[in-house]
């Protein structure tokens, strides 16, 4: 069983995120880390591999320095990493990203492609569906538990109304929820071993994607303007002296919310 896990480098949680006013893109110059919810996808891939054997391949699109972040997932136990790093791909929107990622995945020829939940930088929880369509493979997203049996998978999908249990034949694309597992910490042995694991860096040309179809040139969406959000106004803070419930109701009535 070959499992590809799509992971992304994002600004570290401790970094104050800002949009560069000149490029209108997220400033990615500071400390970076793997998108936290991608670790759930790496963990799930490792559990499947441990149960049935196979290979776990990390696939990423990003700047060359993303290899540092990929090393953490290699230390967790992934076997190798493929990074598509190309200046021309910077600033890609959903379409360009999906195109490049799908092309890299075609090359890996995985039985199962895993994604984590929403990325912490772009907020968008939609990439997997675009990739699944490009690959023409079945998709199950928002999966809270996953079983693999022979050439089929079954995922329990969290919805607004409860759970849908969905089966699909392999090869398939699955996006896991962060409720699926608790990612492991890399062991010291894993960290040492990660340094010698194969890491391949590819250009867009290597994966057969025309540079004009990614990056800003290939984007079908654009940022027109940036502004600070409207202020919430004044905050009233009170200590409950037995009348707080009354004061809350007064505010609710004053604002005609009932």
């Amino acid at each position, binding site marked *: 069983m070959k499992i590809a896990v799509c992971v992304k480098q994002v600004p570290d949680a401790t970094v104050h995120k800002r949009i560069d006013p000149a490029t209108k893109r997220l400033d990615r110059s500071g400390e970076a880390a793997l998108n936290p919810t991608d670790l759930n996808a790496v963990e799930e891939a490792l559990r499947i591999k441990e149960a049935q054997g196979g290979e776990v391949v990390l696939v990423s699109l990003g700047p060359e320095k993303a290899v540092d972040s990929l090393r953490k997932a290699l230390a967790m136990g992934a076997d190798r990493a493929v990074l598509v790093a190309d200046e021309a791909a910077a600033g890609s929107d959903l379409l360009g990203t*999906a195109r490049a990622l799908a092309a890299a995945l075609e090359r890996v020829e995985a039985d199962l492609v895993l994604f984590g939940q929403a990325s912490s930088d772009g907020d968008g929880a939609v990439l997997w569906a675009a990739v699944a369509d490009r690959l023409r493979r079945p998709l199950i997203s928002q999966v809270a538990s996953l079983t693999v049996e022979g050439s089929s998978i079954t995922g329990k*999908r969290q919805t*607004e109304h409860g759970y849908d249990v969905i089966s699909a034949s392999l090869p*398939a694309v699955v996006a896991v929820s962060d409720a699926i597992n608790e990612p492991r910490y890399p062991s010291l042995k894993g960290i040492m071993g990660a340094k010698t694991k194969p890491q391949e860096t590819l250009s867009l040309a290597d994966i057969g994607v025309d540079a004009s179809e990614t990056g800003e040139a290939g984007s079908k*969406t654009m940022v027109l303007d*940036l502004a600070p*959000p409207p202020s919430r106004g004044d905050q009233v803070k009170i200590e*409950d002296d037995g009348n707080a419930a009354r004061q809350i109701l007064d505010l609710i009535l004053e604002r005609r919310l009932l």
Partner: protein
Amino acid sequence: MRALVFLEHHGAELEKGSLGVLSKAASLGEAVGVVLGPGAGEIGARAGSFGAAKAYACDAEALAAPLPQPRVDALATLVEKTGVDAVLFATSVLAADIAAGLAARLDAGLNWDLTDLAIVDGELVGKRPALGDTVLVDVGWKGSPQLGLVRSGAFDPVESGGSAEVEAFDVTFSDFSALATLVEQTQEESSGPSIEDADIIVAGGRGLGSPEAFSLLEELAAALGGAVAATRAVVDAGWYPYSTQVGQTGKTVSPKLYIGCGISGAIQHKVGMQGAGTIVAINKDPNAPIFDFCDIGVVGDLHQIVPKLTELVRSHRG
């Protein structure tokens, strides 16, 4: 602008979020709706009273289960047939997958998490809060159709009283669309509105102290006609179902009133609810971050305050 709005339904009911997007689209130009699945025609006919000039319906068996990929086939067919300028969706687990799949299929731009839409100089422009709602971004599209996912609660449905002509259409499904199948469906029992649809949300976090304390919130929500939501911490602890989780890895909601009880207001939760109209916070920790972004913050014991508030609301409503 001529927009196609994906009208999601649960049972025979059209989702409130979809109807809100439909009403908004109708205010910007011509809006047509689409309903997919068994009974689509009958359900679609109701879209007229929320501004749809027309409703397209396909009740093919392949659309019976709530799976995204056959719906991408259906919408791609309809975009080609109608030549609409935009396709708009109210965000949901299902709609997000359909929108992104359709974007890839049509090579069309998709903007998501939109909180407003406008026509500026003849072009569709969306507003999208980014980076934990610290920046408000104006987004646009190149080419057409222009695809947009609207944040839940952004637009209220407006009853216009019109009627929509329903037109049935056929879909040729992709071979790979049939490779995922629904095996089983579990509906969580709930009374009252869902958190996506509710104008009033009463939410609980770790400060509740125990899962049993959620009954206090349920009583308050029932008195207010609202829904109960939860933080990730208490959902992870198994106190309350995932479908009620608000925050980065749960739902983003923007009710008119949000009452947070025993919620500290960590950034992961904040991004899911700070779009609420009025925020009330009750927490015994005076240093809880939620006090920095609420309208009224009460430092006190929620176990005392919430039942009292419930009583006051009940007696006010008679």
